[in-house]
């Protein structure tokens, strides 16, 4: 077992445990903090795959901006801990059962697929995850979607302001 595999298993276990903690913790603040841990673990996976640009963007955008937005909203609402509604036990059980069935079905399908047998993921090599090739592709082949996404941001900003002012 080399270093890459140890790092992969450690980051995977960390991500899955933190994701479960998001669900089971009663306090919404704790859920947000656990979700930030999941995002850091996923950024670690990106670094293992040598997708350095996406690792940094994931930390800045998700862990830095989006989760801070969530924290602000939770603190603005000042939700009482004991007033948080709980679903009935039977509904929770059915939810977990459905999610587990989905996971089992998809894992069984992936295990059977012959096209995926023996395919290897390139770890810590390859240059496509660096800023230079990504920027070149973004500003030559994908320049139109890039500009359209700025219009999307503008419309999202206008929409958020209009919804918030009502």
């Amino acid at each position, binding site marked *: 077992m080399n270093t890459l595999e140890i790092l992969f298993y450690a980051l995977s276990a960390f991500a899955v445990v933190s994701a479960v903690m998001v*669900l089971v913790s009663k306090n919404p603040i704790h859920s947000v903090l656990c979700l930030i841990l999941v995002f850091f673990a996923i950024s670690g996976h990106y670094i293992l795959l040598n997708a350095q640009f996406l690792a940094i963007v994931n930390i800045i955008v998700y862990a830095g901006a989006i989760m801070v937005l*969530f924290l602000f909203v939770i603190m603005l609402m000042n939700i009482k801990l004991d007033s948080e509604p709980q679903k009935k036990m039977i509904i929770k059980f059915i939810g977990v059962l459905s999610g587990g069935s989905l996971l089992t079905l998809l894992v069984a399908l992936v295990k059977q697929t012959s096209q995926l047998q023996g395919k290897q993921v390139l770890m810590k090599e390859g240059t496509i995850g660096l800023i230079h090739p990504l920027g070149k592709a973004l500003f030559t082949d994908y320049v139109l979607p890039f500009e359209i996404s700025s219009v999307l941001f503008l419309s999202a900003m206008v929409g958020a302001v209009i919804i918030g002012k009502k």
Partner: protein
Amino acid sequence: MPIQYYIFLCLTLFSIGVVGVLTRRNAIIVFMCIELMLNAVNLLLVAFSKMYHGAALQVSPASTAGIDAQIFVFFIMVVAAAEVSVGLAIIVMMFRNTHSVDINFLNRLKN
């Protein structure tokens, strides 16, 4: 690292997100579980991109195959940021009207 390991990890994270959407009633937690599912898909896209890049490198050493998937992940993050700003504005508005973030109160479309 075989691609199956990455697929299993991402399926696990995605299913945890699905279970969260099905079992929690707090609208903010449901929204966070949707973000978790988006991130699982992002990780899977990057893993597949590196898989195809590794296969293309053996044919020609200067290949940039697989770069499209990483650009897609970038655009998914862009759309997720816009989605979160609008969605949180909707949740704040809902909290102002009903003084709760319980999604079971949002059944006015049913009648």
